[in-house]
């Protein structure tokens, strides 16, 4: 399976399940393992969460474009939205898990980027002409 599938959703959380369902369909067709598909479901949702939570907030008008591109090496997912990704790009290098010492040191936020990095093989944040794109890739399993 190769080629790209594009999905555009309104920048609203109630559409997140559609992004996961579409990912599931494509990744299943590419014969990804169950665990890899679960990883990608979380990662693509995290990228959309960022776009929804840190978008330009012009409610109802904004859209998120999700591009799923399959080739022999794996599945590349691009999540593009309006709004600046400056904070996102900076956070990419400092993303870390929650645990540091006692419970008081636990952070309730900021785990999304860390999870994307932990769950995908490649993650990159790029500026586009209209906003920001998160591009991530999961490698296909090597043929035995």
């Amino acid at each position: 399976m190769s080629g790209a599938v594009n999905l555009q959703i309104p920048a609203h959380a109630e559409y997140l399940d559609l992004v996961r369902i579409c990912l599931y369909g494509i990744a299943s067709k590419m014969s990804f393992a169950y665990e890899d598909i679960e990883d990608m479901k979380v990662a693509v949702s995290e990228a959309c969460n960022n776009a929804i939570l840190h978008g330009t907030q012009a409610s109802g008008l904004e859209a998120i474009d999700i591009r799923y591109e399959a080739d022999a090496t794996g599945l590349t997912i691009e999540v593009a939205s309006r709004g600046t990704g400056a904070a996102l790009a900076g956070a990419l290098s400092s993303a870390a898990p929650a645990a540091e010492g006692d419970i008081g040191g636990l952070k309730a936020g900021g785990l999304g980027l860390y999870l994307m990095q932990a769950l995908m093989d490649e993650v990159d944040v790029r500026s586009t002409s209209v906003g920001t794109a998160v591009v991530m890739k999961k490698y296909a399993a090597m043929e035995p």
Partner: protein
Amino acid sequence: MRAEPFQIVAEETTEAVILDVSGDFDLAVVPQMRSALEPVMHRTDKALILQLGGLTYIDSTGIGVIVSVLKLRDELKAPFYVRDIPPAIMRLFELTGISGYLSSGNGDQP
């Protein structure tokens, strides 16, 4: 795959308030989860238990809610237990580093 509808069923026993959480716990249902937690998370007379056996999906927004409850219950010195964590969900708790703070209250790992 179908998107599993998010559902919270609350139950109160003599010792605990139990929230049975099932389906996909994502950003869309954070407000619903917060309103279910709001009336019970400050109660120190009973333990608060999250039953996650039917949970099919969680991401950082859902984990963030659990972390905020964890911190609040710790400050209140009130018991908070998380039980029946499915393996795929447990993996995310481990990756994000919160698994070590979760207790099932049964003397073993959740």
